[in-house]
């Protein structure tokens, strides 16, 4: 799955640690999701979407 997490985070001037804190996850989690090494569960994907006030499909897309 591809995602725009890094771009969306950068647009808001947040570090990975900032985003991790807002999502209540580890910085490793944010890093792994951003680099495409880990696809988040649906509940976490919803939390990410809620945080950026975007639909899930605007953040995550199908693909390697």
């Amino acid at each position, binding site marked *: 799955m591809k995602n725009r997490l890094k771009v969306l985070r950068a647009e808001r001037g947040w570090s990975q*640690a*900032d985003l*991790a*804190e807002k999502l*209540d*996850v*580890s*910085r*490793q*989690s944010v*890093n*792994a*999701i951003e*680099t495409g*090494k*880990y696809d*988040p*569960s649906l509940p*976490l994907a919803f939390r990410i979407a809620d945080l950026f006030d975007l639909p899930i499909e605007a953040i995550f897309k199908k693909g390697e």
Partner: protein
Amino acid sequence: MSVTTKNPANRRYTIRLFVLMTAYVLLLILAKWMFKRGLAEGSLAYVLALLPAMPIIGVFWAVMRLLVEQTDEYLRMLMVRQCLFATGFALFVTTIREWLQNFDLIAAGDHGFGAAFFWFAGLGLGALYNRITLGEGGCV
């Protein structure tokens, strides 16, 4: 929870590990001391022999509790990978050893290196495997 050390599940795991390892050392010293002085006889010998095993079993429990209590799904996934690697590694080594012993190619017994030892070693190797395959994000 931006860094792993602030993760409550990891903190509880570290404390449990410290307590269990301390208990292991103390109980092992006690058991060895009792046996050396011939104070361990009858059913007491069985109890003393099993005492050091209890904290080791406790470490298995602590690892499984970490899997249950870990709220960070990515860190939990890393730990699951470590445990699977450790299980595979321990089964691999002990099976190879068993069959070499079956044909008398190596001495019988485990010389103090039982399945638990290889499982714990496998946990370490599993962490290394996570690091190699997932990069920086592969560290718990």
